[in-house]
């Protein structure tokens, strides 16, 4: 049980990186980004492109960082995936969502458009890499045996550490920087932000960049944890939205808390149920929250 709890925290770390992006985007744009899972996937594959093709040609790669299953090249690959996904998300906003905003389209149309973007992104992954699973590394990694019978791999510690650092980074960004404060102000009241002189289109671009950058890292961490699959992000949408709604949509701290709870519940459930039911656990949690406390744990009252 203790082991499942720890694995739940690892899973929660990955969910939180996706859920924080969804919640920040919702706060500003007021629609749920259904392409978020596929942004994770594409981020994971961009890193794969780097470690499997691009970086080995430059002579980087092959080495391993201490007990981790990957080397320094993976850190570069993660950085490229973040920047690449940030650029792709801003481009998608410019091509799709900005046009809808300027026409004053209904929010439901934006959500539907994001579904279209999700399908396009997923198709790109299929076309580029095929449907077979991909692995960053085939190296076998020995797990450490910790007290309470917990088996933990160095990669899992890496996943948790990266997630915590990024969550802390988002916190500092929102609280300390001029753009972070403008983002919170825009989430509070976009009209007022405009009359105050805030360029809300720039705020929106930053929000996409941060959301998609975090999603890219989540995708890479999923790939490190198991494998890369073209549908991995799409099927991950349920825990992502469950965490977002549980925490209170629009609240990044809530998204982190919700992600940890969903991750732990999903992993603990495997003590009694087949792991195939993990998405169902997230789905049931989401329904219960919507019935009992629709504004979520840390959500604002209407």
């Amino acid at each position, binding site marked *: 049980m203790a082991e499942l709890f720890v694995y739940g925290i690892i899973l929660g770390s990955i969910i939180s990186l996706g859920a924080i992006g969804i919640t920040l985007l919702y706060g500003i744009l007021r629609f749920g980004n259904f392409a978020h899972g596929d942004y994770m996937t594409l981020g994971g594959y961009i890193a794969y492109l780097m470690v499997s093709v691009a970086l080995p040609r430059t002579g980087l790669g092959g080495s391993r960082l201490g007990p981790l299953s990957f080397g320094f090249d993976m850190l570069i690959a993660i950085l490229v995936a973040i920047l690449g996904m940030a650029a792709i998300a801003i481009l998608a906003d410019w091509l799709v969502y900005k046009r809808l905003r300027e026409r004053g389209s209904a929010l439901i149309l934006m959500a539907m458009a994001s579904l279209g973007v999700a399908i396009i992104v997923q198709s790109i992954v299929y076309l580029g890499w095929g449907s077979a699973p991909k692995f960053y590394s085939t190296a076998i990694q020995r797990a450490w045996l910790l007290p309470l019978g917990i088996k933990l791999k160095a990669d899992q510690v890496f996943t948790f550490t990266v997630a915590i650092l990024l969550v802390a980074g988002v916190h500092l960004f929102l609280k300390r920087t001029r753009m972070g404060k403008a983002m919170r102000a825009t989430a509070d009241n976009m009209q007022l932000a*405009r*009359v*105050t002189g805030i*360029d809300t289109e720039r705020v929106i671009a930053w929000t996409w960049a941060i959301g998609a950058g975090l999603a890219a890292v989540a995708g890479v961490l999923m790939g490190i944890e198991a494998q890369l699959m073209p549908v991995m992000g799409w099927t991950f949408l349920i825990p992502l939205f469950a965490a977002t709604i549980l925490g209170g949509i629009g609240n990044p701290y809530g998204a982190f808390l919700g992600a940890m709870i969903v991750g732990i519940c999903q992993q603990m459930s495997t003590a009694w149920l087949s792991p195939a039911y993990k998405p169902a656990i997230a789905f049931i949690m989401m329904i219960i929250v919507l019935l009992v406390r629709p504004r979520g744990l840390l959500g604002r009252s209407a």
Partner: protein
Amino acid sequence: MSLLAVEGVFSGYGGLDILRGVSIRVEEGEIVTIIGPNGAGKSTLMKTVFGILRPSQGSIRLKGEEIGGRKPHEIVRKGISYVPQSENVFPSLTVEENLAMGAFIRRDGVRGRIEEMFGLFPDLAGRSKEVVGRLSGGQRQMVAFARALMLDPELILLDEPSAGLAPVLVSNVFKKIMDINGTGVAVVMVEQNAREALRVSHRGYVLATGENRLEGPGPELLADEQVGRLYLGG
């Protein structure tokens, strides 16, 4: 040259003109009040001057420069600020952060200006780290004023500054408006509390059904029999 000159402006929502040829002038350092019945187009006029609505006809000039149809984030750089009637603060931000947002387009001198605002609004000084959503209505209105003053504007537009406040706070709001004016800022306000507003105003305009009805010095309008009967409640 007037600080603000609105001439023959037509404007409204979705092709339907609410303003039908409104003209107003504001000179430097003046307080100008716009009164009129509901639906007269008072708030529409404010939104049109500030670029939230586009005028379909007419001109809006700030110190001679045409600003009609420009976007709010451009107009705010010209030295005008706007305080909307409701939802005029960022509730999840602290007092200090709200003020900092007021000076978003400026990168330096923000800290000093915040201190100046705490001098003008001493009520806020001890609450700089408090989240604005937890403040009282009167305090929030002060935050909204201070936010709008952060860029040191020459003109501030106030849409119903006393709306929704307890009667004891209303006179305080008008006192603050006079304080703001005392620092050299011209004020244009739309008000339901027409009597109090005209009392502190240099001049006033009466609008009805999107057109100019009357204008004159504040005390004169207050004394006008027709204004009294129609808009001041007796």
